[in-house]
């Protein structure tokens, strides 16, 4: 692992190689899989993580979501930042580059 990542607007979040964000068909659920870890995700988290690709910045992810769900940009940006920070502290998100 590299150093602690601070999630800011310009960060390009991505999943580390060993972390898989996946849909499990028989269970009909989205999960994050990592060594000895399994995180079940709610719909909000799934919508955010579907946009995490290492190309889009935190800010752009938030803008896209705020348009899609017709919600205030600053609130969404805060939610996205908090969630990604939490996942990053747990080692499930890293920065591209």
């Amino acid at each position: 692992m590299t150093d602690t990542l601070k999630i800011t607007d310009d960060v390009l979040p991505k999943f580390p190689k060993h972390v898989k964000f996946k849909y499990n068909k028989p269970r009909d659920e989205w999960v994050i899989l990592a060594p000895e870890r399994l995180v079940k995700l709610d719909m909000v988290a799934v919508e955010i993580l579907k946009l995490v690709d290492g190309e889009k910045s935190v800010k752009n992810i938030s803008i896209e979501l705020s348009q899609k769900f017709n919600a205030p940009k600053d609130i969404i940006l805060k939610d996205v930042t908090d969630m990604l920070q939490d996942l990053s502290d747990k080692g499930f998100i890293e920065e591209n580059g």
Partner: protein
Amino acid sequence: MDDLKQNNLKTASEHGIQAPLALLAELSHRCPLQCPYCSNPVQLEKKTGELTTDEWKSVIDQAVEMGMHQIHLSGGEPTVRHDLEDIVEHCSKTGLYTNLITSGVLLNPERLNKLESLGLEHVQLSFQDTDNDNADRIGGFKGGHAKKLEVAKWVRDVDLPLTCNCVVHRQNINNLDNFIKMALDLDAERVEIAQVQYYGWALKNRAAFIPTPEQLDHATEIVEKARVDLKGKLVIDYVIPDYYAKHPKNCMGGWGRRFLNMNPKGEVLPCHAAETIPHLKFDNVRDHSLKWIWENSEAFNLYRGTDWMPDPCKSCDRKEIDWGGCRCQAMALTGDAKNTDPACSISPLHNEIFDMAAEEARNAPPEFIYRKYNVRFNSPI
């Protein structure tokens, strides 16, 4: 036959239990090491009885159909199997998150490279100590530790994430700091610091392993500090020996609730130590589907839920939190798997057993009884 219920016990779905999350696949009990705390049963399975490649592939397909997320390829030493590559490839094709739990000593760079390219996602490498000589003594394998350090580098060279599995006990707990440092030096993502759990081989060696409460408190302090200092850099998982916990661990997330374990000959167990409960009858994937076994197998249904519990668990408000602790430990220490796990401070046997273990911890450690085939020991209890 598959549609017949085996007995009158409630099944998984009648308990409201969903499909398991992960499969622990013991590909082989064979292992070049002889750790005296090995979780394998004291009666080890020989090569001739092991499932074939195709049988494992079928099990993997079934696990995916059931909705399992992860597979842990373990042992013994899973790399003794020459078809490990085929098995990894199959797991990865079907979308299972594939983890290899290994002692590493049989690996080489070419093989790791191949496994990575076939879709292996993570390697868990076991370490016996950070001190070279002591590590080799504990594992009973000369040159083992040096080889492991090399293997860890190869793992990172092919960009596979690494977890260092460190089993700590009174004979290496003073190196806890060094274990964490080693994990950082080896560029591991995660370090798992587990105290020995006492059943199977480890119970035979409890006196050689059990730390004193002071040693344990010190260890816990080190881990807590490191967790803060290394947040976001290194994940530290820590399991304390439940002899010193107030309540037992929530063993496997409850008997037959989340995981299943398969032994090398295809028997399906609720936990890796379940073979230490002599009256359990295990069903085999050679006779039934995995799904049928999860739903109906007596070994699972006997201790599912809470109906089977005697007091004090029965009337305890934690019974759906820790599910009465570990059945194997209850069996090993009280002679009845149904009893409250004596690790629980509420167990009537807790003090007696706790005192005995604490006494052992104060005395000089005895020699190890090494994990081997075809040796029989008298139980120390």
